[in-house]
């Protein structure tokens, strides 16, 4: 299959701390990749570099044969890489519906025509197409019951879903999920991942997700990349990687210890 996203020797250090020491991953189109590793292993740093929030000290990021290393998050988003966040990034004072409508408003401006040709015509909240799209999205992620509730008042699990729903609004070609189930109760986590995966399949896109929860990883990620201290410890079929004893000792061991506290991490 064709490689859609390819990172070559990404390096990033914060002062003395090396968060990424040459990360190279090639992601095929329509594949699903799980990124695992203890906290500080460099997963989120990697995601932040790919999505332009951090500029790598060295290395390249190639998206569909195009170098996006130096681009801003908004340009990368416009090219078709969208992400969700470990700490959901929502418009807290606005309702679920409004959050989605704003997302759609921006999407429509980027997808069709210039700012000015659109904005002065388009009043998202009044535009039936937009409303329909928003409701479909709420439908898909079971958000309808929270429609008019302000985002800051939502339960953590729902915030995660809304965060992901907003990422999917822009119909990305690559979707990156940063700990989609952290801070979510054990009985909810599979439900959430199922919803996400359905949504993804429905319009077909490549998925990379950072995850601490091995059950989730084994169940949803055919391919797994294990991070350790800014390096890639192992990369390959889920089964192989998870059975690798280095991974077992350095990564999974560490994670098991964390499992219980996972929910706190997301609040940190």
């Amino acid at each position: 299959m064709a490689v859609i996203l390819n990172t070559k020797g990404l390096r990033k250090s914060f002062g003395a701390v090396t968060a990424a020491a040459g990360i190279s991953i090639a992601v095929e189109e329509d594949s699903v990749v799980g990124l695992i590793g203890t906290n500080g292993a460099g997963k989120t740093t990697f995601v932040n570099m790919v999505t332009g929030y951090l500029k790598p000290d060295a290395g390249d990021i190639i998206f569909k044969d195009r170098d996006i290393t130096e681009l801003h998050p908004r340009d990368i988003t416009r090219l078709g890489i969208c992400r969700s966040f470990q700490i959901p990034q929502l418009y807290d004072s606005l309702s679920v519906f409004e959050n989605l409508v704003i997302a759609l408003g921006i999407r429509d401006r980027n997808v069709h025509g210039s700012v000015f040709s659109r904005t002065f015509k388009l009043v998202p909240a009044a535009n039936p197409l937009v409303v329909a799209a928003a409701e479909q999205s709420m439908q898909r992620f079971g958000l309808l019951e929270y429609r008019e509730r302000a985002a800051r008042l939502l339960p953590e699990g729902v915030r995660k879903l809304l965060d992901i729903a907003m990422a999917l609004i822009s119909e990305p070609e690559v979707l990156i999920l940063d700990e989609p189930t952290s801070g979510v109760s054990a009985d909810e986590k599979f439900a959430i991942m199922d919803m996400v995966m359905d949504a993804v399949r429905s319009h077909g896109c490549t998925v990379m997700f950072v995850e601490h929860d091995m059950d989730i990883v084994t169940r949803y990620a055919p391919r797994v990349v294990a991070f350790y201290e800014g390096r890639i410890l192992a990369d390959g079929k889920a089964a192989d990687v998870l059975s690798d004893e280095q991974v077992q000792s350095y990564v999974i061991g560490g994670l098991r210890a964390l499992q219980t506290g996972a929910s706190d991490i997301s609040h940190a």
Partner: protein
Amino acid sequence: MNEFLAVLMDGLIYSSWLFVIALGLTLIYGVMKILNMAHGSFYALGAYAAASMVGYWLNHGHAPMASYGILVLAAVLVGLIAGPLIERGLLRFMYGRDEMVLLLVTYALFLILEDVIKLIWGVDPYFIPEPYSLLGTMDIASLTYPYYSFILIGVAVLAGGAVALVLQYTRQGKLLLAVIHDREVSLAMGINVSRFYLVTFTVGTALAAIGGALTAPTVSVVPGMGVEVIVLAFAVVVIGGLGSLEGAALGALIVGLVRSAAVHYLPQVELFCIYSVMALVLIFRPKGLFAAAEVRKI
């Protein structure tokens, strides 16, 4: 050369005056996140209190030397009365509200205090010139300066140093730093935040009042004397970086020296040199000179 020395001296004196006032402002902002519009009114209160107390003292023929003590005493009294009164009586009901709302509350406070001062002291000017000339003068760069001006510099250094030491080396100071750094966490850690707010506001008020009290002998104490001070202090604090002690010091120095240089070499621009400096600093250091850069976790 002489002129240059004069610029330095005048700048230094002006800076010290500014610093004492700005210190309270930056302290209050750092801890309580309130940009206190009423700060100038506390300055005026200090000046009025000092003027009437010292005036009384001298009119009753007591030792003039003691008037310096009374100046400070007056300011401290203002701090101890006005500070807690306003913090407990009004501000504490406003915590958690938006920074701008708090700014407006203090603006309303400023309006009220302007008239309260008028109701207490009337509109006639008060003079207590004695302390200014009492200590005699000395010549620097063929210019005459009263020793009193150096007292001002001393007080500025003392005040700044004291605050710095308290923050660095006392337990309370460290706790206060914790509060400054993160209110929620400090609360969670069981720090009595509201007490710190009370103390901080009182100290800040007292500092403004001291600024006013020490200015009283050199000016005619009149209504509205606090208005111009507010924006000056704002400028200093913003240039330095809000809530930063060393920032306020550096800001005061910059403003003071720039202004006195302007006065000596280019009097026409005195009016807006301060704002130009403020604009320039913000253009090149968007958060002021001593701003802590915060990285947001996502």
